[in-house]
């Protein structure tokens, strides 16, 4: 047979019926096997929630965190990914309430403040540590509180990340008796109580520290909280179980609380829709889809407390101000070129709240009212630019971390600045490098997402205070006022007034424009009761009050 005949015979060959049936059978078996393996997912069955307000014991709730914690030591860590577990397992003297507007007792049964520098806490009696070696369920005492606060105030830069709360502020801590601890400050210090209620000011056991040193690993978490560690599969999930000896009788209601570590937002939506998660905060782009697919799900909406800010270069005695931003009129012009709602609409689809001053709008009573808002005023901005000597604007650049939200916000800023003649080039920078640049104060304009807390000083001092390092602003009067308001302890109205005066000063100086905070939606199954939104720092603690109606 010649070669051409050989190939011709191959081409003429047809599929026999036997071959076709064999292929079909193989395909069918393959598809069946694939479906048997692949179809292991859950199917959410809808049911009517039991109309009952009586908490029920039992059940497991599964939630999501975007990543596993790097470590679990409350005095060393700073990540939210750590605090959600820390607040379940450890306790503090006080805790912020569900709205983060008021401090309520936790380990402390009560407290009193006889004068501006003294705080006396009476502890609940019979509070037991988790029954895990080396602590073995002994009773918590005032000595534990003293030990913990002194530990977290250790002056070791880069290690004890919250030492600044109390380091150099507390003159002494006395364990007056087994259940009474007294703090005496060097001088009046208004942030003290807020920091005592912080998710990081947790009481740890001396035995654990003596054994392990750093309580970084999950298995070192021994606290007095409502939950105890059951298991931790790194980067997969962390499971806590009910503490049977929890000092708040009857709590927690749940048997277990599971946190799964899921990075991808689409995967979170998928798992929520599929019923694998009991509640989750959903990306803004998926909210309508989830609402449509799960009309019976509960929705909790709230705002972040971490504002987006648009800032000019810092300066102080050692760092010269960068032209043209050393000109106050230029800075004020930039502030008036900004339309804050545009950021919210363009970047987050309308889901946000405008900031007025430096303090996030949800942090009442400290935040400035809406009536103090500096609104976009292009004619005024152009006038200020002309007065500053830049009638035709100038070229500059905006740096930001290369996260989608800061890049998008920078693009909005570019468009707004163009209206007053400022031609800004956007320079996204990888996160680690970004901090190097920012710490070196080596930039012109910067789009940033700052962090805050319940303590108003945290929005002011790290940026404008005399000890600030993230950012420096060399206005001595401002620095002094920030220091002074920390000493207003007993007169809250006076402190509110002082803080708002500082915010007005900052508005006038215009070193940065506070833009907006994001509005989040947390979806939860109909059977859930008492759950808190995922972005809340204390949702771990309040998981003790979470229960399932069915």
């Amino acid at each position: 047979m010649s070669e051409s005949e050989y190939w011709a015979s191959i081409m003429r060959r047809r599929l026999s019926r036997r071959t076709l049936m064999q292929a079909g059978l193989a395909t069918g078996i393959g598809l069946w096997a694939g479906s048997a393996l692949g179809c292991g997912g859950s199917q959410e069955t809808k049911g009517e929630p039991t109309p009952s307000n009586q908490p029920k014991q039992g059940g497991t709730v599964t939630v999501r965190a975007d990543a596993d914690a790097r470590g679990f030591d409350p005095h060393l860590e700073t990540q939210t990914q750590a605090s959600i577990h820390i607040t379940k397992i450890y306790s503090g003297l006080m805790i912020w309430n569900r709205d983060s507007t008021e401090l309520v007792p936790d380990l402390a049964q009560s407290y009193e403040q006889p004068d501006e520098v003294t705080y006396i806490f009476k502890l609940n009696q019979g509070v037991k540590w988790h029954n895990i070696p080396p602590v073995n369920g002994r009773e918590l005492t005032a000595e534990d509180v003293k030990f913990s606060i002194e530990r977290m105030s250790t002056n070791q830069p880069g290690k004890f990340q919250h030492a600044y709360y109390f380091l150099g502020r507390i003159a002494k801590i006395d364990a007056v008796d087994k259940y009474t601890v007294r703090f005496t400050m060097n001088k009046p210090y208004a942030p003290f109580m807020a920091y005592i209620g912080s998710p990081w000011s947790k009481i740890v056991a001396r035995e654990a520290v003596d054994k392990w040193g750093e309580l970084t690993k999950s298995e070192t978490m021994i606290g007095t909280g409502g939950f105890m560690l059951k298991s931790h599969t790194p980067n997969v999930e962390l499971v806590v179980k009910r503490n049977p000896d929890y000092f708040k009788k009857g709590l927690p209601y749940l048997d277990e609380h599971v946190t799964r570590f899921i990075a991808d937002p689409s995967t979170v939506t998928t798992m929520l829709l599929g019923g694998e998660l009991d509640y989750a905060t959903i990306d803004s782009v998926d909210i309508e889809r989830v609402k449509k697919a799960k009309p019976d799900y509960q929705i909790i909406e709230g705002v972040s407390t971490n504002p987006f800010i648009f800032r000019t270069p810092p300066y102080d005695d050692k760092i010269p101000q960068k032209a043209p931003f050393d000109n106050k009129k230029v800075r004020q012009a930039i502030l008036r070129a900004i339309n804050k709602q545009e950021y919210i609409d363009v970047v987050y689809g309308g889901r946000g709240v405008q900031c007025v001053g430096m303090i996030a709008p949800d942090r009442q009573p400290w935040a400035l009212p809406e009536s103090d808002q500096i609104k976009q005023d292009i004619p005024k901005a152009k006038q200020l630019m002309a007065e500053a000597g830049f009638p035709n604007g100038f070229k500059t650049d905006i740096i930001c971390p290369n996260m989608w939200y800061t890049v998008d916000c920078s693009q909005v800023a570019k468009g707004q600045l163009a209206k007053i003649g400022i031609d800004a080039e956007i320079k996204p920078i990888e996160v680690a490098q970004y901090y190097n640049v920012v710490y070196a104060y080596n930039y012109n304009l910067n789009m940033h997402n700052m962090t805050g807390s319940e303590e108003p000083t945290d929005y002011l001092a790290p940026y404008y205070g005399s000890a600030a390092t993230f950012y420096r602003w060399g206005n001595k009067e401002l620095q002094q006022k920030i220091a002074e308001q920390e000493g207003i302890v007993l007169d809250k109205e006076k402190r509110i007034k002082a803080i708002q005066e500082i915010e007005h000063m900052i508005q006038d100086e215009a070193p940065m424009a506070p833009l907006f905070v994001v509005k989040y939606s947390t979806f939860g199954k109909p059977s859930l009761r008492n759950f808190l939104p995922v972005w809340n720092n204390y949702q771990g603690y309040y998981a003790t009050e979470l229960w399932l109606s069915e």
Partner: protein
Amino acid sequence: MTQYVIRRVLLIFPTLLIVTLAVFSVVRLIPGDVATLMVSEQGYGADVEAVKHMLGLDKPWHEQYIKYMSNVLRGDLGTSLWSKRAVTEELSLRVPVSVELGILAIGVSLCIAIPIGVASAIRQDTWPDYLGRSLAIGGLSIPGFWIATIILVLPAAYFNWSPPMKYQPFLKDPLANLQLFILPAVIMGIAMSASVMRMTRAMMLEVLRQDYIRTAWAKGMRERAVIVRHALKNAMIPVVTILGMQLSLLLGGTVIMESIFNLPGMGRLLIDAINWRDYPVVQGVNLVIATAIVCMNLLVDVTYTYLDPRIRYR
């Protein structure tokens, strides 16, 4: 052959030495250092130099490297600068995930690519051939992460169904493990099968034109024997080369699939370590990947001798 294998094994060590030197240097040259990142998270940034001293990063470069290598030779790859977990502990959790995903993906790829490639070759320029080549181009063109997202989101949105997303080690729960891995393995396998299919087809076309194949037909051998025993075996050499390269790349290159399907593999570990400048973890992961690549190359070379007895190593 034995001598060849021994020589190749011995060559692994200088190769890995060069890799560790390169990674150790490069990761420290990347702008943005871990000390600055650590202090940036404090309420008031502390002394960066103090943090560097705490981490041992203020020592001269060569001192750090010598200390690192002396630990590596004792099996200690260091400790994560952030989590304080031993790098070997991190890797022991992640490597099995990546290896399993890689092997499953390769398996799916072979199950798809070889039959289609062979069928496409023996039915050249017919509709099976056109279909196979179209599928290959589709597999090469369509991003795997897009397919993955569609597979996850659409059933969840319309049928309230999601695949299982919780990782279970294979030895603990094989069925749950496979239920999680099947989808990413299939998606990755489809993407990988495209290039394998095209290579298989091309090599089969060349081999089928060889004299020994014509001899086999002339002897009256059955089609299956001609194709599988004679033609396919000889066509496999470049295919094995591609598979070896793909498996090596899979170990650290599956970060997107790992993120979408929530798999705690080496890809995510490496990306997170780079972002956080966790130098020991970056070094450890790269060392593992380099070792795997070197071993894979050796395995591929040894496989050649099985596929083609004419290949001999001295």
